[in-house]
């Protein structure tokens, strides 16, 4: 024991120091308490009429409803039409972005609903002159119908296309003492023929109109 006494002091000392650090260096509020409760209110301001586009709310099935009710602080699922162009907008927001990770990304949701994801790629979306973000693009197929899904996350005031990077920034924000809201933005366009470029043009056009109503501002690059 004599031999171990300095080791014992070191172990006790380090644990005690850590205890003091986490006890006095932590925020007083829990993440849920400190999270901005108004973060989901922007959903109410998304207009049904958007420069030629007309929207209507679309119901979700019970399975999706159960997941969203449990893990999301707000969501919106709408169909927008403009002439022959048609897109589906899905926004899911959480006041504490950690909960956003419990919401299934389209890569998981689509197969759950019987869609096959044929391709997955990254796509630059121009939201304004000199302002773009990198989104994930999926080509999905079901019963002969094809759709192109474009989605990205916003984390606080950043746009992100990678769930892994989103997670890293969550940790970083947490270490820095921030508790930021998060949103999953998904724009789906049915493919007419196989014209993916046309579908993307429609999606990009809609994203540009939607951008002013979203909480995050693109600063010329996404993370």
């Amino acid at each position, binding site marked *: *024991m004599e*031999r*171990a006494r300095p*080791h*014992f002091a*070191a*172990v*006790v000392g*380090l*644990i*005690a120091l*850590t*205890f003091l*650090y*986490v006890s006095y*260096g*932590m925020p007083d509020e*829990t*993440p849920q308490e400190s999270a901005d409760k108004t973060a989901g209110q922007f959903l109410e301001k998304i207009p049904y009429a958007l420069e030629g586009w007309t929207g209507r709310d679309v119901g979700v099935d*019970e*399975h999706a409803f*159960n997941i969203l009710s449990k893990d999301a602080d707000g969501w919106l699922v709408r169909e927008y039409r403009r002439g022959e162009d048609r897109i589906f907008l899905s926004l899911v927001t959480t006041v504490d972005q*950690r909960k956003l*990770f*419990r919401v*299934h*990304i389209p890569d*998981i949701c689509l*197969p*759950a*609903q*019987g*869609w096959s994801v044929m391709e997955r790629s990254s796509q630059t979306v121009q939201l304004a002159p000199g302002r773009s973000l990198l989104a994930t693009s999926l080509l999905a197929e079901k019963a002969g119908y094809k759709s192109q899904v474009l989605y990205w996350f916003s984390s606080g005031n950043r746009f992100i296309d990678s*769930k*892994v990077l989103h*997670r890293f920034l*969550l*940790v*970083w*924000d*947490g*270490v820095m*003492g921030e508790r930021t809201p998060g949103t999953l933005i998904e724009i789906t366009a049915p493919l007419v023929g196989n014209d993916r470029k046309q579908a993307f043009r429609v999606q990009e056009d809609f994203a540009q109109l939607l951008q002013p109503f979203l909480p995050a501002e693109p600063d010329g690059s996404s993370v």
Partner: protein
Amino acid sequence: MVLFLSSMGEGFSNVARRFATLMETKLSLSPQTVWSAVAVGALLILLFYPTLGRLIEEWDSNIYYSHGYLMLPLALWLSWRKREVLQVVPVEPTWRGLSLLLTGLVLFSIGRKADILFAQGLSFLLVVAGSIYTLKGKAVLKELAFPIGILFFMIPLPYLLLDPIGFPMKEFAAATSSSLLQAFGVPIFQDGVYLYLPNYLLVVEDVCNGLRSLISMMMVGTVMAYILLPSITDRIILTAVSIPIALGANILRILLTAVLGFYVSGEFAEGFLHEFSGLFVFLVSLGALMGVERILAWKEQDPISQPLSA
């Protein structure tokens, strides 16, 4: 008031002395070992108390980790089984253990600051291992490595890891169940995780993806392998076999639910019987695991498979 506090202090001190004597006589532990363990243990409880609270919340609410309550008692019991070996293993305190301890404490600090339960839980294992390594040395840590390591099963994996595992399992379960039901003449149409029967819609929810069975079966398989099988190869085999057993058990449960839903009704299938079928299937998979263990143990003892002595 002073008298009251002083009596309380004396009372605690008596209890502590009796505890130390008990440890010394029952476990043949020296007083120094007991007191250092009590001191470090008390500090660890103080440090990890909020984490333990969060873990309990998860064990209550997370469908994949309801077995979490069992893990600490299990780890303590596994450590207690090692008491005779620990008495003869050389004790060599070393500064090398501090790197493991520091890693655990830093991870804990990050986990607390960023509110990441997985990091906090993992840090508990590292801090305990690092403390033992520093105070008692490598040989003692080696003996206690498994009881400490088994605590990993009480730490909820982050959803970032659960989803990529859970969803393909859900798809597999839905597709396999659908194929088997069709093979047995039950009319069924599969659309993703939706199984449409003529009179019943069965949705393979997250709770039915088999991940819960997989995590708990892997835990049971790992512990069984460690306790019952001496050979490393056999231990790996038994742990690995727990995976297909868990997947098969989950599919069996979906099949039972679908068959009951089709031949009786959806309400009947998803009522009490659904929960009962879960217990039944768990017992069946436990039996299957024990069966594999018996085969592996018999193979070890079989004289025909033993090399002939010269």
